[in-house]
């Protein structure tokens, strides 16, 4: 039996034992075939699935011996080097920081210091580093909306592979990164601004129990999303509402949800002439729909980012949300939420119509599955670019991504092969760190992904110009949706003009 099959089998039988689907005798018999027997019993003694998988993780979730051997060999000249990396607190960064980097450090002798910060502070630190060219950080965490701004400040990984053949990881396989993510997250014009590092993407998450109780089906269209949500709010409000949005005034979250609605109604932010067209008739229809949907959301929704939106579902206040897939494992964690095992993930609602990418400007790709995500790249100003390149390859190789996905709590992998990794699949059950939503994430990436425009001014437009005006609109400062969108158009024109 292959090692991977053995791990998958062990995970499966232990999971069944914990759930009471297998008696102790059968469990011992099954594990004895793996040469574990009674020793495996300890793995199944935890009262919660999470504890089980944590125990199992510590036993079984080890890096590949092949990867470790390569690191040991290639890392020798860099022993004693210290690498610095500032990152947002995301599942991959947290898994690497707290559980995985020790393997890299032990094998190479390279010390890795990871500074975990909120996203806007990462941007501040990186901007300062780039402006000063001081190389205080060796690796950059680049949010997809910053790709254009930092494209000249990092190495293109394809060039690194060619230029440093002796440092290239065998079987790193850069083509394994999902092409849609390379285009949406890591590519600016012809350059790769690092490699895709994580991929939060909008999927539809809904309460299966509530939908079944009211005889509803998972929303497949925007119209169904509204009618289902209105029915739930009518039947179960004010305790439970049909839908929760992420509509905090002036916050990037509001821009994300709005673009999803805009794209879903056949609109786009820019046209091929690079002019804002979010205020055309499709844009107006999208904002009118969003306004209608807001009316059946919980009060106070205009104060919520994705955090408040997620809490609304986790507390049973809302029955559905269109939001980042990486929230799904959180809902399945019985220690964190009251809805463990009650939520389901499906693909986002089908768009009413969809504008083609060639009709849009700045590389914008319309799609309801709004894609976020970030790249990992080596800074051009790093004083240890080779050691940083080793770390980058290790952190984004298929083996590490599989470990990150399982240990990091079911975050979406950016490599195609990781979705089929037995270790990842073995966690597809109800409980903390579930991966049972990943097939939906994969399908959304492949077929329904929407990607924001790439332009250096995008960080300002997406985090300020658009969400501030939308916030004012939802607080009643404009006479109509058209007026608000026209104001956004004027604001964007001013930003682009400089």
């Amino acid at each position, binding site marked *: 039996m292959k090692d991977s099959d053995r791990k998958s089998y062990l995970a499966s039988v232990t999971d069944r034992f914990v759930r009471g689907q297998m008696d102790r005798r059968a469990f011992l018999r099954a594990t004895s075939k793996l040469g574990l027997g009674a020793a495996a019993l300890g793995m199944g003694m935890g009262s919660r699935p999470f504890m089980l998988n944590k125990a199992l993780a510590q036993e079984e979730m080890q890096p590949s011996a092949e990867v470790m051997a390569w690191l040991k060999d290639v890392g020798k000249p860099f022993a004693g080097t210290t690498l610095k990396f*500032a990152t947002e607190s995301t599942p991959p960064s947290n898994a690497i920081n707290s559980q995985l980097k020790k393997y890299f450090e032990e094998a190479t002798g390279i*010390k890795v210091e990871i500074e975990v910060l909120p996203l806007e502070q990462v941007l*501040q630190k990186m901007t300062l580093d780039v402006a000063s060219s001081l190389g205080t950080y060796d690796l950059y965490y680049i949010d997809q909306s910053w790709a254009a701004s930092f494209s000249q400040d990092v190495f293109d990984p394809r060039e690194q592979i060619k230029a440093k053949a002796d440092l290239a990881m065998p079987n790193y396989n850069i083509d394994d990164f999902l092409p849609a993510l390379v285009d949406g997250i890591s590519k600016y014009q012809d350059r790769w601004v690092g490699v895709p590092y994580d991929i939060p993407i909008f999927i539809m998450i809904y309460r299966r129990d509530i939908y079944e109780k009211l005889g509803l089906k998972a929303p497949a269209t925007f119209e169904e999303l509204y009618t289902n949500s209105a029915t739930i709010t009518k039947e179960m409000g004010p305790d439970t509402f049909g839908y929760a949005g992420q509509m905090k005034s002036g916050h990037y979250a509001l821009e994300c949800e709005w673009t999803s609605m805009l794209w879903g109604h056949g609109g786009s932010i820019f046209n091929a002439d690079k002019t804002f067209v979010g205020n055309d008739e499709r844009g107006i229809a999208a904002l009118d729909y969003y306004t209608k949907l807001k009316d059946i959301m919980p009060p106070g929704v205009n104060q919520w980012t994705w955090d408040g939106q997620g809490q609304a579902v986790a507390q049973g206040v809302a029955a559905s949300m269109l939001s980042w897939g990486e*929230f799904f494992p959180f809902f399945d964690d019985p220690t964190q939420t009251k809805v463990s095992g009650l939520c389901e993930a499906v693909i986002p609602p089908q768009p009413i119509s969809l504008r083609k990418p060639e009709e849009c400007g700045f590389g914008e790709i319309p799609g309801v599955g709004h894609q976020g995500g970030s790249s990992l790249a080596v800074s051009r100003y790093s004083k240890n670019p080779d050691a940083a390149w080793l770390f980058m390859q290790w952190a984004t190789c298929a083996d590490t991504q599989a470990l990150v996905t399982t240990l990091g*709590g079911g975050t979406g992998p950016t490599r195609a092969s990781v979705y089929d990794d037995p270790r990842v699949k073995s966690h597809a059950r109800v409980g903390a760190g579930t991966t049972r939503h990943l097939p939906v994430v994969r399908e959304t990436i492949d077929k329904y992904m929407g990607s924001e425009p790439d332009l250096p001014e995008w960080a300002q437009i997406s985090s300020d110009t658009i969400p501030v005006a939308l916030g004012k609109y939802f607080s009643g400062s404009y006479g109509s949706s058209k007026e608000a969108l026209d104001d956004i158009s004027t604001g964007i024109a001013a930003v682009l003009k400089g």
Partner: protein
Amino acid sequence: MHQSKLVRTVRTIAGWLVVGAFFFPIYFWTSVAFRDSKDIFNWPPIIFNFQPTMRNFEQVFGISFGFARQDAVAPGGGNFYMAPRLWDSIVVASMSTVLAITVATFASYALSRMNFRGRHQFVNWVLSTRMMPPVAVAIPMFFIFKQFNLLDTYIGVILIHGLMNLPLAVLLLKSFFDDIPAEIDESALLDGASRWTIFRRVVLPMAKGGIAATAVLCFIFSWTEFLFVLTLTQTGLKTVPVVSSTFVTSIGTAWGNMAALGAAAIVPAFFVVLLVQRHLVRGLTMGSLKQ
């Protein structure tokens, strides 16, 4: 008599209401530290009836309450292990307070007692440094600190917090020294005491209350300062306000962990205030009655 009892009762109730209004946010925040995530955002809110857990404290303070660096955390210690950061805060706040108070005591005594050209302008100049927004200084400071290898070091942060508190400490202490009659100094001078002896043996003991009050303010300002620590540190050290922001993750905010750190962070500051409480009351009321 009956009316007086009524007034007393109303006063007592009003007193308790005021105390409650101040105490309730602290209670609620602390109680969040003892809750699982699912018990935090309830509607209607749960005030008392929740299942207490130590999970948040375990994650924030690790397996043992040691002052190991982050890289010494055992596997599974997690990204929310913050005990070393509490220690960083204590070191930075204490040492920067000592630095600011030491320098400010000498400077303010000189400004209070000695006559030299431009004394009043000097006081205004000290005050003007407080008028500049810290963000205007933070980025130039980053370059200066990088040049002198002070980035991400205790000395660097202690220095910047000390400098930040210095103008306020000088102005406050000067007003306390001004309140001590100059005739006392003159009498001591007539008795043959040197300026240093007067300062050390006569004036300083009388200004103890004012120094304590100023020290508390400096400590609290350093304890809660965010911008300079964020800009001038990386992984070597961080203080509580900066690491509190790291509980904001891409998949939500870890409110329970944040509350655990916040609740624990109240304790050292509370003890500092407690230690100097006796002097503090004296210091704060110093000069309230003019001779």
